[in-house]
């Protein structure tokens, strides 16, 4: 803070007009970046809100002259069983693959790796991070092959005397959930490894000397100190998982039927296959609202000081 004082003080001595110009001059470098963001982020979201109240479409009458239809898209949406199912699938996918799978999985991996031999950490790290670095499309192909009828998983099960299944047909949501856990756990692991290295050793040693068990140390020292990292991580992975499209699109295409049709897939179908842009926009708003709801919960958790 001390360091910043100098330019501030010289600024206050200038006449107000120059001060204003100076502030504007400082804000100037922000303009190109934020202009681009306004055009491609803020603009589209505002347009999305507007379009969700119209019957805008790519073909037919709605294409040339979209009409305001009030809440029709939203009313249609909430009376549409496909939508309700899709919303439900999205929430299950979010909780299963992000909040439980990646988050807890990443935490356990970070705890397991903490303090282990360098070579083990490096090898496991490369494998897990490799899954994360690989393009989503390729991950989709790999899991499609892995879970297919004649795929690796069934071959392994067969080798140990068990019967496999058509995983992608019989359990599509579980399949894409596990594939997404495989793909995303590395991120949580990296976040938690960094957070773990910030937990002071003295605290843990003192507690150990006082006779606290390993579990008690984890529960009362390590985890509370990692609270912020955990909430930040949860927010990031929840919103990332909410937007997962490619993995599901490649593995199941949302099927069979609509059994793994999460909101992004449903939105894609409506907007780009059936050309109902207005309805697609309304679905996008719901998608954003789900993300917003989760974010509010996490942000409130962050505000509470421990």
């Amino acid at each position: 803070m001390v360091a910043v004082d100098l330019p501030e003080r010289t600024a206050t001595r200038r006449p107000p007009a120059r001060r204003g110009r100076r502030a504007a001059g400082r804000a100037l470098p922000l303009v190109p970046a934020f202009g681009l963001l306004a055009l491609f982020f803020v603009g589209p979201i505002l347009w999305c809100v507007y379009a969700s109240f119209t019957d805008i479409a790519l073909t037919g009458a709605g294409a040339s002259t979209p009409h305001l239809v009030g809440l029709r898209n939203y009313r249609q949406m909430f009376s549409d069983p496909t939508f309700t199912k899709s919303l439900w699938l999205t929430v299950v996918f979010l909780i299963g693959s992000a909040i439980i799978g990646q988050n807890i999985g990443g935490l356990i991996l970070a705890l397991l790796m903490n303090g282990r031999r360098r070579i083990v950490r490096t090898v496991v790290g490369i494998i897990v991070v490799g899954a994360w670095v690989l393009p989503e499309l390729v991950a989709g192909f790999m899991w499609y092959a892995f879970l297919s009828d004649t795929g690796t998983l069934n071959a392994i099960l067969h080798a140990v005397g068990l019967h496999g299944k058509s995983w992608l047909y019989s359990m599509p949501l579980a399949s894409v959930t596990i594939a997404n856990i495989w793909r995303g756990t590395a991120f949580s692991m990296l976040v938690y490894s960094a957070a773990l290295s910030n937990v002071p050793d003295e605290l843990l040693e003192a507690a150990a000397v006082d006779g606290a068990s390993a579990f008690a140390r984890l529960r009362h020292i390590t985890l509370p100190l990692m609270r912020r990292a955990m909430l930040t991580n949860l927010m990031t992975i929840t919103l990332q998982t909410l937007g997962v499209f490619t993995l599901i699109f490649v593995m199941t295409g949302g099927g069979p039927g609509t059994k793994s049709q999460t909101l992004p897939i449903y939105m894609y179908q409506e907007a780009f296959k059936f050309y109902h842009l207005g309805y697609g926009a309304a679905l996008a708003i719901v998608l954003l609202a789900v993300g917003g709801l989760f974010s509010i919960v996490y942000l409130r958790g962050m505000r509470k000081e421990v």
Partner: protein
Amino acid sequence: MPVPSPTAPRRRAVAAVAYLMLALVGLAFLLPFGWLFLASISEQPTLSTSIPDRLTLRNFTDVLTGDNLHALANSLVLSMGAALLTLLLAAPAAYPLSRYSQRFGRPILLGLIFATCLPVTAIMVPVYGLFVQLDLLDSIPATTLFLTATGLPMAIWMMKNFMDDVPISLEEAAWVDGASGLRALLRIVLPLMVPGTTVVFTFTFALTWGNFFVPFILLIDPAKQPAAVAIYQYFGTQGGYASYGLLAAFSILYSLPVVLLYAVAQRTLGNAFAMQGAVKG
């Protein structure tokens, strides 16, 4: 914690369990990769994973046709363009946010964090509408600009965090000598944060390279589509069993640049790469 204590044998047992679990997790994470590698060097690959009778590199040579090379070149144009443009826009934007943050305040920073997390999927419908209205569909420059915008909030945020680590005292000397903010940024700050800049470049490049949905929606002409879309279209429409080897080979070739980029960045930058810019704060 090298404290000799009566619990030492128990600790060794805990360590053994931890190593066993790490080995299992590593194996479980490794298994799905098996098909990709074996199918790519097999002469008659299927969806099953088996040690091929005869090894071949023909899948790799066969898949490097003119069209596929063209698609990889498109990927390179999009990713390189977006990554360079991101640096060009993010560095100046991060500078005032890092140096005069109390003036611009938290709203901008909070907005940036929110935009960083925003799933791009959610805005593809309106962006498609925007592209139709401005007649920008099938335009590689416009798609590059949009991809830049999607990575920009994270890039600015990371740049700001890396910039916060550069002591301000160096610039103050330059300011006293009459150097402008831009000069201070170019001559003093940026040279001191080369590792951070490299991390931002790597992330943006890899994100753009791996992006399927955005070019899938915005680029319709096959001649303009990047590798991600080309692989999907090619094998999605052919769907023939004969092409699994080609699919695996093309997938490997397509993944290689980002995997190498991460590996090099990780090796040369070490800890700077440990997500510091992304996670801090």
